[in-house]
Structures are given as C-alpha cells and as structure tokens.
C-alpha cells in the first residue's frame, strides 16, 4: 500500500516537472535582443485613439489624451495632464509647484515612453527590459544578465551626435576588483571609489579622480515622543556632543563637509550662508544634560545597518566613533547593527531608539528636504513642530527665491532650537577614469557618457550593482537610473555637470504666475528608436501610467511608481484603500 502511494506520488511529481519544462512560457533568450535598430522610420505620425479613423489619404486629425483628477481632495497635488495639441502638453496642480522643472529633469522616473510601445507591452517592465524603446542617445544592443549591458548610438537621436561608438556598462560589487579593472585598463571608469583607494588613484599618473558633489546628508534620528528625548535640552545637548568635523575627517572622502545646519550647502534657496548652529561643545553638552536631569546610568541603544552609501561611507566605524564621543560626556551607548531589510521598516515604524539614516536629493529644491522631513509627524521621528511646519509650507508656495530664503533662514534657526534630528555630515562620492578618456563631465544628476571620447571609441564603465530594470518610472535605485539615462529622454534634463534644468524633449515649459499650471511645447520631428513619432500623447501616457492606478497601461515592475507619489503630493489617483 505504501509502495503504491509512493508510485503515484512519484508519477505526479515527475510529470509535473516535465510539464514545467515543456510548459515554460516561451522564455525568450534572456540576453536582450537589440531594440530594433529602426532603419526606416515610419513617416506618418502615430494615430491616436480616434475610434473611427477616417480612411483618408492624409494623416488623421490629432486627438489629444488627457488625465484629469476628479477633484483636489484625493490627497495629492496633481490635477490634470492634457495634450492640448499634437506638440503641447499642459500640466496643472492643485497647489503651486514652483519646483516643477527641477522635478521633471531630475530622476529617471520621468523618462518619456512611447504610447504605442506601452500599449504593445501592456506597460510591463519585464517586456520593456527585453526591448526598450526610447529617445535617448543610445539604444540597448544586448543585456547579458549578470555581466554587462552594451549600448550603441541611437541613429535617430534628436540631440547632439554621440561622440563614441560603444558604451558598455558593467558591474562588480567588490570595490577592489573595480579598481583593479581600472588599473589594468579593462574599464574606462568606475563609480563609488572607496576612501582607501583614493590615495592609490591619486598616485597613479594614468588615472584621474573626479569628485562628485551630490546634496545628501547623514542624520541621527531621534524620536521626540520617547523620554528622555522629549526634552528639548537633551536633544540640543546631543547635537552639541557630536564632533562632526572629526567624523568627516576620519571616515569621509575628501570634499565631504560636516553639517552646520539642516540642509547641505548646495540647496539654494534654503542654506543660510555663514550660519552654524549647535556647534561642538562637549563640556556645555554635559552641563546641559546634567541640568536636564538626564539619566546617565541608563544605556541607550544606537541602531544602524551596515550598508554603505555616499553619505554613510563606513557605517560601523562612524557608529563606533559617535558612541565614543557620547561616552566622553558620560552617555552610555550600546551599538545595535541590523540587517537592512529588517532595519528600515523598524525605523519607519518607530521601533528603534537612536538610529542612523540618510537622504540623497531627488531634485534640486528645498522642498525635497524640508518638506520631506519636517512637515509631518511620523512614527519614526515623532511629532512635527507647528512653527517649522507653517514656515515650510508657506515657502513651498512661493516662486521668489529671496522671499523663500528669508523663510528658510527662520526655519534653520528653529531647527537648531527644536533639534528634530541631528544632521551630521554631507558626503562626497568619487569616480575615477582613465587618463585617456576625454571630456568627462560629472554632475550631481548625470554623467555625460555619450560625449566622452576615447582612443578606440569604446567607453566601459563599472558600477557597483546590476540595474534592476530599464523601466525607471517604477524604480528607485541609482544603478537602474544610470542605465535608463542612456536610452530615454525626459522633458527637461540637467545641463552636464550642473543642477540647472534645460530643455530636452520639450522645447520649453512655461509656468503661469502662481505656478499651478505648466505648459510644455514639445520638440517636433523626434522619433523613438522603433520609428514611432513622438508627440504629446506619449507624454500623457507616461504620466498617466505613473499617476493613475486605474490607467490600463500601468504595470511596471512592482507597480508602485514611488517617485510619482513622492514628488507630486504624496498620493496619486485611485490609490487602493489600505
């Protein structure tokens, strides 16, 4: 009897294994076949969704798409996006958004996709990865998973001609291996050079070091609803007890600076020149703690995750340094290292005491700093401060930089008084290139790979991780963004080496007086890499996918499209109820 059961079970399992092999959905060759290099672009513009296409000899009349929010009560800022004619798109918002240009130029999440292509693939990122269709300077020739992506110049690119013949993106988690590849000449450039390798690179005459200043910060998070940190004096004392300069000197790459106030020096308006609050004063800090009747006998936990970021280059060593500095004023600290997958949700849920986290700027505007951290209460950091919140909200609606700066000056002073969190340092990253690679211009948001020159026309770059997907509308990691940047274009982009938005796919975007409406005129005669012509409906389709859960072409990878939420008010249309 037992034997028969075994026989049946084995037949069942074996046959389903066989079925698995045969019934595998036709897995196309994983190495992505090249996005069809369209030699002959179709002449007629893409017909839009005119239900009854007139059987005419001339091109059918253009019907513009639009997406309109039913009202402004759903919780987000987006109101509508409409293709008013074939080459004009109008965005409108519930509340003023003066930073609109900076936002759409910043993250690769706002790459513009072809509506026809989205329709063909159903908006699915896995299909996009196999055959991406974009308007960028490059097209994908092959993606050998786990090893490299090869890019070739896009023959129908509308911008300046690409200066090299091949661009290869590789990745390697080991910084030492990346450096060795660079020294051996196997790659032209590497990202994320560690602090220890800087000396080696500087000493090597064949290599050039390129520092890159991104606005970021590392902060020590405090929950102000939990004693003893509900006492403002205690928070101020902690802020004064940390010797930020020493930490930067010991553990950060050259070019990094200690924090003097809430935002990094590059955030303008926002940064108050010449201002430095809560300067390092261990004696005073100890005195303040004693006055506040701080319990020196208790041991406090400081949590962190061993995950290297530009703002947190050596997590464990920095945590140890802070522990030692607090020990000098008599505060007992126990370090608690956690796994990132556990750490972040715990921090967000407010389960950790003191903890380290950081932030890198998404787009160059003060609203990506103050509004993110200081305008709302959260389980992580506790209650917000009403005086700070009012000032920040007011500044977000203004367009005049000088006016905004006045408000932010006040916020900076209040930050020192309330100490919602302790910002410690702003880290610089470094990239290194072979000396023979010319015209290397690195900005906080992009690298000009299409315009770098090399002796044999090939540029090879090694970063620290494989891109997750090429549909960056639904991604948040830098490895994917760097790849997307090569094959897609946005309405605006940042000028090489700067944080100044300049037109790209749009000829110009103009805002109305209170920045609630932005009208973009698009470039004409641009074609996607599969030959389809670019027009306003492509822009509408792209933004609809990101802003409306019910849009039929919204699939992506995880389907979250996080940046659309973050940058347009926190919520998008038709979000499922929690």
């Amino acid at each position: 009897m037992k034997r028969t059961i075994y026989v049946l079970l084995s037949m069942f399992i074996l046959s389903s294994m066989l079925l698995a092999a045969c019934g595998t959905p036709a897995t196309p060759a994983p190495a992505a076949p090249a996005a069809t290099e369209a030699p002959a672009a179709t002449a007629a513009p893409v017909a839009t969704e005119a239900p009854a296409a007139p059987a005419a000899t001339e091109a059918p009349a253009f019907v513009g798409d639009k997406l309109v929010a039913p009202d402004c009560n759903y919780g987000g800022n987006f109101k509508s996006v409409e293709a008013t004619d074939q080459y004009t798109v109008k965005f409108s918002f519930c509340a003023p958004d003066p930073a609109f240009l900076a936002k759409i130029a910043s993250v690769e999440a706002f790459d513009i996709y072809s509506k026809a292509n989205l329709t063909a693939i159903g908006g699915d990122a896995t299909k996009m990865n196999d055959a991406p269709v974009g308007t960028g300077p490059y097209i994908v020739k092959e993606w050998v998973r786990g090893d490299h992506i090869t890019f070739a110049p896009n023959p129908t690119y509308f911008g300046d001609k690409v200066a090299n013949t091949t661009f290869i993106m590789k990745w390697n988690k080991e910084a030492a291996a990346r450096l060795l590849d660079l020294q051996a000449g196997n790659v032209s450039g590497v990202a994320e050079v560690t602090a220890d390798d800087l000396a080696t690179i500087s000493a090597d005459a064949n290599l050039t070091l390129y520092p890159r200043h991104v606005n970021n910060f590392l902060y020590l998070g405090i929950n102000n609803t939990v004693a003893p940190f509900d006492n403002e004096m205690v928070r101020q004392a902690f802020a004064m007890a940390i010797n930020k300069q020493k930490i930067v000197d010991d553990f950060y790459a050259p070019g990094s600076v200690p924090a003097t106030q809430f935002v990094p020096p590059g955030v303008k308006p926002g940064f108050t020149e010449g201002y430095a609050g809560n300067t390092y004063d261990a004696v005073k800090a100890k005195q303040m703690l004693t006055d506040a009747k701080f319990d020196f006998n208790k041991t406090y936990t400081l949590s962190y995750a061993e995950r290297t970021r530009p703002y947190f280059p050596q997590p464990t060593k920095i945590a140890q340094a802070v522990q030692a500095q607090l020990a000098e004023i008599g505060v007992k600290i126990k370090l608690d290292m956690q796994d990132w997958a556990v750490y972040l949700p715990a921090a967000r849920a407010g389960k950790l005491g003191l903890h380290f986290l950081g932030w890198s700027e998404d787009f160059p505007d003060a609203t990506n700093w103050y509004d993110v951290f200081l305008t709302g209460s959260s389980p992580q950091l506790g209650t917000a401060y009403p005086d700070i919140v009012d000032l920040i909200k007011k500044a977000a609606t203004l367009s005049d930089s000088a006016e905004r700066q006045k408000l932010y000056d006040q916020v900076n002073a209040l930050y020192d008084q309330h100490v919602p969190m302790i910002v410690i340092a702003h880290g610089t990253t470094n990239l290194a290139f072979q000396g023979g690679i010319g015209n290397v211009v690195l900005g906080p948001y992009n690298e000009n790979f299409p315009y770098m020159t090399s002796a044999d026309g090939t540029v090879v770059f090694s970063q620290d991780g494989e891109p997750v997907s090429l549909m960056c509308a639904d991604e948040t990691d830098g490895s994917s963004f760097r790849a997307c940047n090569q094959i897609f274009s946005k309405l605006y982009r940042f000028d090489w080496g700067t944080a100044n938005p300049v037109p790209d796919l749009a000829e110009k975007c103009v805002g109305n007086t209170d920045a609630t409406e932005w009208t973009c005129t698009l470039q004409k005669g641009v074609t996607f890499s599969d030959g389809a012509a670019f027009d306003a409906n492509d822009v509408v389709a792209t933004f609809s996918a990101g802003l409306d859960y019910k849009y039929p072409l919204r699939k992506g990878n995880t389907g979250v499209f996080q940046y659309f939420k973050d940058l347009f008010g926190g919520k998008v249309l038709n979000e499922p109820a929690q």
Partner: protein
Amino acid sequence: MIQFLVRRLFLVLPVLVGILLVTFIITRLVPGDPCYVMLGERATEASCNEFKSRFGLDKSIPEQFVRYVINIAQGDFGNSLKDRRPITTVIGERLPMTIELTILAMIFSSTFGILLGVFSALNRNSIVDTLTMLGANIGVSMPVFWLGLLLAYLFALVLKGTPFQLPPSGRLSAGMSLIPLTKVWGITDATGIKAFLLAFMSNSAILNGLLTGNYALTLDALKHLILPAVAVGTISLSVIARMTRSALLEVLGQDYIRTARAKGLRYSMVIRKHALRNALIPIVTIIGIQTGGLLSGAVLTETIFSLPGVGSRMVEAILGRDYPVVQGFSVVIALIFVFSNLIVDASYAYLDPRVRVK
C-alpha cells in the same frame, strides 16, 4: 538494477516534499520585508502594503503554501520579487555558469587528485607520500575565500603584465558579447522546451562560443574561470587525493592482488587491471558527491570572483528576502543534490554487483 533505481527514487520523494515545506516556512519566518529592500529609503508603509497585496504576501501562510504547490504542479515556479522575471528564466541564466565552473573545477580536481593519490599510494610512506598527504590536508583546511583572494592577488597584481596574468573577477571581458543562439542561427519560432534549451546553451559562454565559432569568446570565458576553478577545486582535489590513496591502499592489501602477483603478472598490469578498477568505486562516489556539492553553487567563490552563478543569486535572494527565488532555487538545488547522490548510488551499484543484491 531498475528495481534498485526505482526503489531509491521513492526515498527521494519524501525528502523533496520536506524541502518544499521547509524552505517555504523558513522564508516566511524570516523577519524583514522584501519591499523595504527594494524601495530603499523611499519605502513607506502605504507603498509596502500595496506591494504585499499585489504579490499575495498578505494572505495567510497555509493559503500561500497551497497556492504555491498548485503553481509548482503546473510548472510555474513564480517570479522573482526583485524584477518579476520567471524563476525558470533566472535559473536558465545562472545554472549554466555554475555548471561551467563545476565541470572545470572537477576536471582539475579529479585529474590531479587521482594522479596524486595513486602516486602516493604506490610510494607509500616515502617522503613524497607524506608531503603529498600533508599538502592534501592543507588543501582541505584552507578557507576557499582566502585561497581565492590570494590567487587573485597573485595572478592579477603580482603577475600583471606577464603572459600569466589572469583577470581577478567577472565572467567576460568588456567587449565580449554573448549573442543568443536563436539570433545567430536565425531561429524565431522556438517555444517551450526547445526555447529553454537554446537559452540554456546560449548562456553558457563556453558552449556558445564553440557552437557559433566565436572561439575568442570561449577562450575569454575560460580565462575568467581558471582562478575560480582552481580555488574551489583545490578542496575537492585534496579530498579526492586522500580517498584515492586510501582506496588504492585498501585494494592493494587484498588477497587477490597478492594472487595476481604470485601468478607472475607485471606489477603495472596488476595496478591497471585489478587494483584501480576496484579502487575506482569509492573514488567515483567521492567525485559524485563533490560535483553535487559544487553544482549547488560555490557561494564563496562566486562572491569573491563576482561570477553570476546559482550561489551568489541565492545569497542575494536570502538577504533581499526574495522569497520566490529562495524557494525555487532551493528546490532546484536540492533536486540536483539528490539526483547526483542517486547517480552516485547507481554507479556504485553498477560497479559493485554486491550492492545490488542487498
């Protein structure tokens, strides 16, 4: 013989079911959220709740398990949470790499291991024997990640510029393309198992190069595999050498060897015709076990040499809480392990008739 195999196959089944259950439970028990790993600093509770419901992670565990088993029965191993690619595709990409490494490592370790073992056995208790066995012992005692790093240092840095220089990491040099076979041969209508096999062969750089005549590709892939194969093969080499020596010694001490020599047979003939063949049994067993172990992914070697194989993907998935990958790969790895043990047992039965009768 068939009966023996079938009997052994039955014993495999409860093990497989157990593996499925255990991996499922372990992955669900693991604290930490895949959503937070993937969205990074931007993750919010709202986004992650949405993420969970989309992937069915908010249902109860028994319900998830039932759903999973039903899918497996239909051949659907699920999709990776990281980029939603089917697990079968991911395995099809990673497994060829691991197989290449395993084959090279086993060729290296078997050849030299057996040679060393035979040499030691025939010159028993000589200084060579002692040194070889000490060397084998050292080989087994070395941490593979240490050996790999030292080899990388030696061949990539110390020997830089010499013809002996070898790349310290990666699978291919920049500029080498791995063109899928479907494209090279112009096959556009492959589906199902044919497509899978073609994709599988395309992903083996060595095979791909040989089949398409792109010998530079094969050579480049081989060059990149030499150091990892030596690093991971050294341990197998040492195990095989020791086993060969002891097996051969045991056989040589048997009566029938003495009889053969007494009959006047030349010693070398004795070795070749009688001793080796019988000593081969435990040696084959060991080689089979080592191969099975290597096929399951040489995690440490792949990490150091940045090889995109099964082991490194598995570790990534465990740390990134990519449950479908952990489960799918566990089942595949366990299957490989179990079937390689089965093959070893079968070969054991084939070579040694006494085993079959039991």
